[in-house]
């Protein structure tokens, strides 16, 4: 409005020495024409950083160590020996038990996310070795419907646990999830009991379970297997909690303090064992696996030896 009235005024008495200015928008467009994906603004320190530099650095900000999101595949390759692992239960597909439809059909959403992530659901079950010790790792993929847990995720976790029990293999999860998936309704809720029950079987068999929490781990995932680890650790600054920030703010009618529900907050309140930098994650796992190792060198002294 202001601009147009200025234009009108100008046309009423155009001054001979005033050159017609180019509209400002064109200059704006020029600025936007910088190819995307080369520079990234760090969410931690707000610096603009060359993307390749981040990628070379475990997807951490080189200035402030802010942990950028990485996908499940990349995560796994950082943990396993030489980045090598085999995936299993890869073909499992979600059905649509409720015939759910919001603004889009659930089935269409599933297809859409499958094409974005190259996965069939929000989790990858894998086996491989870490420092030559066999492990099973289930890594959740946040880009697949917010890493939400429904029938397939639950079933894959339970099968991975069954594999661990059968082969006496340590079990590791990397959680990255908003919680239970609404589109499968009550079935999603039941996965919380299903996975927690399986963790019970794992404990009974005396097999260690290491739960790694990454940004974010909330809702039905944090309120089930993710919080049941023998060892629980998290990446720095990861959002971990039960209720979402907005829900809490609406309920209590005030803004939340900074750092609320972040990994550091959970550590302070005794909810997790430690916070581990992404660069140290593999080393930490090696140390832990060494501790839990069941080989003869690591067993306690025989009872009869006095």
């Amino acid at each position, binding site marked *: 409005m202001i601009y147009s009235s200025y234009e009108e005024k100008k046309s009423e008495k155009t001054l001979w020495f005033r050159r017609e200015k180019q509209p400002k928008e064109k200059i704006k467009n020029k600025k936007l024409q910088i190819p995307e994906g080369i520079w990234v603004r760090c969410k931690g320190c707000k610096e603009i950083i060359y993307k390749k530099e981040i990628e070379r650095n475990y997807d951490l900000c080189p200035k402030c160590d802010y942990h950028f999101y990485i996908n499940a595949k990349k995560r796994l390759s950082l943990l396993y020996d030489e980045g090598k692992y085999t995936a299993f239960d890869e073909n499992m597909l979600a059905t649509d038990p409720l015939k759910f439809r919001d603004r889009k059909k659930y089935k269409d959403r599933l297809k859409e996310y499958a094409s974005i992530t190259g996965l069939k659901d929000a989790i990858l079950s894998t086996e491989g070795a870490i420092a030559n010790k066999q492990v099973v790792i289930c890594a959740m993929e946040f880009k697949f419907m917010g890493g939400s847990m429904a*029938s397939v995720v639950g079933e894959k976790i339970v099968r991975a646990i069954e594999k661990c029990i059968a082969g006496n293999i340590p079990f590791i999860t990397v959680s990255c999830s908003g919680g239970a*998936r609404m589109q499968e309704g009550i079935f999603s809720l039941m996965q919380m009991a299903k996975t927690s029950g399986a963790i019970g079987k794992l404990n009974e068999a005396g097999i260690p379970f290491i739960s790694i929490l990454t940004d974010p781990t909330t809702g039905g995932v944090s*309120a089930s*297997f*993710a919080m*049941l680890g023998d060892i629980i650790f998290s990446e720095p600054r990861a959002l971990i909690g*039960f209720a979402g920030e907005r829900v809490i703010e609406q309920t209590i009618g005030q803004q939340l303090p900074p750092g609320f529900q972040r990994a550091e907050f959970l550590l302070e309140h005794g909810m997790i064992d430690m916070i581990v930098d992404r660069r140290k994650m593999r080393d930490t796992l090696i140390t832990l696996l060494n501790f839990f190792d069941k080989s003869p060198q690591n067993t306690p002294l025989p009872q009869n030896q006095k």
Partner: protein
Amino acid sequence: MATLDFEKQFIELDVAIREMQNLAYEWGDNVRQEYRRLKKKRTKMFNDTYNKLTPWQRTQLARHPDRPYTLDYISQIFSDFIELHGDRKFADDAAIIGGLAKLNGRGVMLIGHQKGRGTKENISRNFGMANPEGFRKALRLMKLAERFHKPVITFIDTPGAYPGIGAEERGQAEAIARNIYEMMVLRVPIISIIVGEGGSGGALALGVSDRLLILEHSIYSVISPEACAAILWKDHTKAPEVAGALRLTAQDLSKHKIVDEIVKEPIGGAHRNFDMIAHKMRRAIVRHLQKISLIPIEKLLSQRYQRYRDYGEYQEPTD
């Protein structure tokens, strides 16, 4: 009695009928006839409405302020109830109650969400939304029951676990996870009854059981219709529609084999005939308890595990 929006039509009719009632003695036969006609119409309308409730209407009934709550059922069905308090760690959460009682002369452990009547009690009971200490109290009582071989009966009626700052500080997620985990392996029979709202994780934290019963107009869902509408439709007014999409009614849950039995309510909802619903619930509890008490505990535990192990629908094409 509080009135839901779809019940307003009866109120208008009731007023008309009551006015007629006074007139009937003054004005002879034709008014009397009209009175009978109205009364018939009212009964028909009432029955028609309650026989064809929409999922949203059931949701409203499940949250009805006059609906019987856990303590109402406990006082009607059980004897010698002694309420026990506190989690021995932090506080006593009034949103969850529990204690010892007798059913047909046998000791049982009762645990349940408790909503409040009226604003004042609702504030102290936090509208039935438990904090971690509530779940930890429940777990303490379950462990107590386990040590003395008493079956556990839980009543579920909560909008959900409380989303507050203190709740997060004290580990709401861990408290829920721990309860689910422990209930899976608790070495006594567990029966759960959804008497009102079964709100997500807060409900499941008392709801892992050998037998799950539900009242006819109760609901059980992964998320409230309002919250789901706000997230997926970006419009919380779509809640009535979403209630249908979530399949949260007792009938849907029974179809999906989540619940074992639907306890039929008197027409118009449990609050319209409390004696009747309490009587029916008592009979259902006794029947199920008798059955599962006969199952050896190891077998019961493996059945319980298998029940939850089997939940979920997926396909696995081989290539």
